[in-house]
């Protein structure tokens, strides 16, 4: 059945991450997208004119024809948008670029996302994405849908609330070493977390991600070309995506309600299982994780789904602040500060940090990183993951 393997076929050779405080971007989304793409190409040491593929996700604007024309490329061979909101397809966008390269549809693909409040409004604020069967009952934002799922994760499944807090505090600890993080110079302790105002229970203010203006771009090329370009390229070892249980069209009647969407169901492999199988690796092989945390609860559920932490009350034994901290713990997570303490350009900055860990250029480097996992938006309608490896892991 399979004709082209994704494993090691493509690699990230250039990255750029421009972010600003929400509402303070100096330019609109198109301009910032172009800036990020040009910067990522410069990081890769190549001309933007060589790009022939463009991939974004979740309703981002500006397709390959627009960007290709602006950049003066020779030809646009691949221009795709991954459906699905909530950051769920951010990793799927990377996977899509790798698929294009692995199958010869394109040779040099840039994955991008830009957000500027002036162009697209404030994402978390009453966009009325939800239909009347949510709105009539006071549910009008992803925070509330994720809160309902997280409440059951805590109260019914028994995951301790301290596990959510640990994820948040580790992110803030990482941000203290990252001068460009929004949380830099703003350390957060248990008391500060606990005393912050409630947003929608069980989420405090600090359980919720930031929203930044900015643009992020990652350039992928074939493995052959990557080897010639740089020794620290981040190879795509595996990617997987999926849509469990129907989600929004069945109004909170999906199976595995407290799953983040990556878990297997009886008789069905889940996204996480497919990721590990495709890579020939397991959760114990991962050196560092970047998990999309629009809210802390779904991120904890995503770590459980991927087998990185046990389900239920034992999750608290693995998900401690120290164990999630780079240089100290066995499961360093969101080492730039993540969406919560660094910046949020629809979660794409996390992919850049996953690449930086492979390169060894993170501000919180995890020693001798060979395997770097990026997990896309948990508890979104469609979710995805990408596993990166160093050249010597191929």
């Amino acid at each position, binding site marked *: 059945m399979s004709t082209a393997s994704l494993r090691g076929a493509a690699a990230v050779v250039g990255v750029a991450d421009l972010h600003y405080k929400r509402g303070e971007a100096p330019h609109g989304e198109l301009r910032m997208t172009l800036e990020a793409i040009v910067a990522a190409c410069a990081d890769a040491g190549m001309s933007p004119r060589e790009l022939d593929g463009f991939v974004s996700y979740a309703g981002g604007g500006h397709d390959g024809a627009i960007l290709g024309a602006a950049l003066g490329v020779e030809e646009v061979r691949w221009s795709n948008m991954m459906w699905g909101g909530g950051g769920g397809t951010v990793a799927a966008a990377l996977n899509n670029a790798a698929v294009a390269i692995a199958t010869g549809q394109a040779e040099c693909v840039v994955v991008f996302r830009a957000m500027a409040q002036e162009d697209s409004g404030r994402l978390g*604020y*009453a966009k*009325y994405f939800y*239909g*009347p*069967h*949510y*709105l*009539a*009952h*006071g*549910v*009008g*934002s992803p*925070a*509330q849908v994720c*809160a*309902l*799922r997280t*409440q*059951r994760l805590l*109260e*019914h499944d028994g995951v301790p609330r301290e596990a959510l807090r640990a994820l948040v505090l580790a992110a803030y600890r990482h941000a203290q070493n990252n001068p460009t993080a929004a949380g830099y110079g703003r350390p957060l302790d248990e008391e500060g977390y606990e005393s912050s*105002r*409630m*947003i*929608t*229970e*069980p989420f405090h203010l600090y359980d919720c991600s930031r929203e930044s203006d900015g643009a992020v771009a990652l350039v992928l090329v074939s493995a052959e070309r990557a080897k010639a370009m740089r020794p620290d390229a981040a190879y795509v070892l595996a990617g997987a995506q999926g849509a469990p249980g129907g989600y929004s*069209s*069945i*109004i*909170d*009647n999906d199976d595995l*309600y407290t799953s983040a969407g990556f878990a297997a169901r009886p008789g069905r492999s889940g996204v996480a299982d497919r990721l590990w199988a495709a890579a020939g690796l397991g959760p114990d092989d991962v050196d560092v994780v970047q998990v999309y945390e629009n809210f802390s609860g779904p991120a904890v559920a995503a770590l459980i789904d991927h087998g990185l932490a046990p389900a239920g009350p034992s999750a608290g034994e693995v998900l401690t602040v120290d164990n999630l901290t780079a240089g100290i713990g066995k499961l360093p997570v969101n080492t730039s500060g993540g969406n919560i303490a660094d910046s949020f350009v629809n979660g794409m900055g996390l992919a850049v940090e996953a690449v930086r860990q492979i390169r060894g250029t993170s501000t919180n480097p995890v020693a001798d990183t060979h395997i770097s996992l990026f997990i896309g938006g948990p508890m979104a309608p469609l979710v995805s993951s990408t596993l990166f490896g160093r050249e010597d892991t191929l």
Partner: protein
Amino acid sequence: MSESSPEAAVERDDVDARVREYLWGPAADGLDQPYWDGLVAGELRLQRCGNCAEWIWGPQWICGACHTFDPGWAAVEAVGTVYSWSRSHYPFITELADRTPYVTVLVELPAADNRRVLGILTGDDADGVRIGQRVVGHFELDEGATWPLLRWRRDSTEGARS
């Protein structure tokens, strides 16, 4: 115009009433019309396939179990248990800002093969809401609203039963 002027407040109320109408009520495509008609009649109606008896929620054009189109509707007793809940403090929906904080419950309905429906929990005892508690549905027409809504109360007989 000053936002605090009485004139502004009146205008704001008018806008809210219109928006409330927009926020809920039957979809333009008619798919969920029987649900809303049921609320007016004081009944909770969900889809139930006339061919294979599958309960379906939210509204669908087709039964996912047997692929019968326009699967049909049935009334179901509005009694269930809290599957999950969240108390919203931030006014995510500006038109409901005057209600915050409010508790939204996801209620599992044993009479509909444990299909789950959302609703706001009313009553003074909403503070003590927990998963697994029995709740009973009722139908409320908000001031200025066109369509009534299904809301939930803790079952006052629960203590006596257990």
